[in-house]
């Protein structure tokens, strides 16, 4: 019973094995991909492991406070170098092994040529609420 975030990147992750931009896929390949993702989420809801999933637009902006009375700074000329998150899924599973297994399945979503993309997904555990029983006697 631990929650994990699976992060999918537009940019910033290591290159996928089947690394063909999505706009070069056939419409059928795109449909198959979307179907796979939807089926995956539906299946996790049935197993009681689905928490949340959202897709994000490709355009993101870095924003920073720039001092009293000045408008926030947004990133300028090097926007293309930053990591971009494409979307996420949050799962609630019994073990880390199960989380890895599911991330592996998601990474196998079909891409160009109907073959798995083998894309890299980032898997991050959530920081949990403190347990009622302190695990350390001095805690």
């Amino acid at each position, binding site marked *: 019973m631990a929650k994990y975030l699976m992060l999918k990147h537009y940019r910033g992750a290591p290159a996928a094995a089947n690394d063909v931009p999505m706009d070069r896929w056939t419409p059928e390949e795109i449909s198959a991909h979307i179907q796979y993702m939807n089926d995956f989420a539906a299946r996790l809801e049935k197993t009681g492991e689905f928490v949340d999933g959202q897709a994000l637009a490709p355009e993101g902006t870095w924003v920073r406070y720039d001092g009293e009375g000045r408008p926030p700074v947004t990133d300028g000329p090097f926007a293309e170098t930053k990591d971009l998150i494409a979307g996420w899924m949050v799962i609630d599973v019994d073990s880390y092994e199960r989380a890895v297994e599911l991330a592996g399945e998601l990474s196998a979503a079909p891409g160009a040529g109907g073959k798995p993309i083998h894309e890299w997904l980032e898997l991050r555990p959530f920081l949990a609420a403190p347990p*009622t029983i302190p695990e350390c006697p001095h805690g």
Partner: protein
Amino acid sequence: MNEALLRSLTPSVLGILVRRGADFTAAEDAVQDALLEAVRVWPADPPRDAKGWLVTVAWRRFLDSTRSDAARRRREDRADEEPAPGSAPAVDDTLQLYFLCAHPSLTPSSAVALTLRAVGGLTTRQIARAYLVPEATMAQRISRAKRTVSGVRFDRPGDVATVLRVLYLVFNEGYSGDVDLAAEAIRLTRQLAAVIDHPEVKGLLALMLLHHARRAARTAPDGTLVPLAEQDRGRWDTEAIAEGVAILQAALARDRLGEFQAQAAVAALHADAPTAEETDWVQIVEWYDELVRLTDSPVVRLNRAVAVGEADGPRAGLAALAALDASLPRHAAVAAHLHERDGDLATAARLYAEAAHKAPTLAERDHLTLQAARLHSRRPR
């Protein structure tokens, strides 16, 4: 309408239906229907025998829902020949339900969800909110769990250790949303202790009560952790401590030591100390030796190293720690604490920062980061 009464009756009513041959899922639906009916009818017309009323209504609902099914009709006929529900003791039925909900074929999270639903009588929404997952997810988790155990025969004795593990998981979740899972776990363990005579059930109940007694003092109003040594002992619940100690002593007198009793003994020694300085660490080390013997768990050995550090000095603690795998959860935190007590502040600060990085909870991370920062700000940069 007494919601607590309804919830306490739920498991035995469900247990009776299942023992009479009702499919688990159908029985659960029927009991829910009966509970709704009770909420509607009882305020105006309270029954003399609340449980008998619920069994009768739930059984009728179950029969109604299965009447059209030819295969089930035979079972229904068979069940019709049974005597009408009376005030027969439901002790065994409730116990069976605990075993069913903690059946080894279920994953831990399914077992927990099913226990809270079937034995605890919580709604799916309440359970979902307590575990911070969508209600649809929890509903599926529960219905899968029900399907998994629906073929399980109800005539074999279950494994008490599995039931206790599930209750312990519930307790550990603590408090979130509108349901206090720690209090719920105590209620269920109390109920289990009433129907089964087993020293480890008492041991777990004592352990929960002793930890629960310290809850108010374990966090500051802003949510930060307060270590045991710094807790305001005036905020400990002395009544819960007294009850936990009494239950533990009765269990220990049975001379069938188990891991929960030994853990409760450690907790009792902490609870007994009027100040942190007066803690009987020597005896705590002895209990950890028992725990190592019972469980051979690396986490227990780690906790033992902390106790050794308090009983025999930080060097002895570090020596005990040296024998353990550094990748253990909280290894760095323990090492940091012992190095600090040994006067090596630079190493302690580095290890606190490392421990913070690996902390599994936000409160723990903040606590450990503060320890590192405290040591850094004491030393010249």
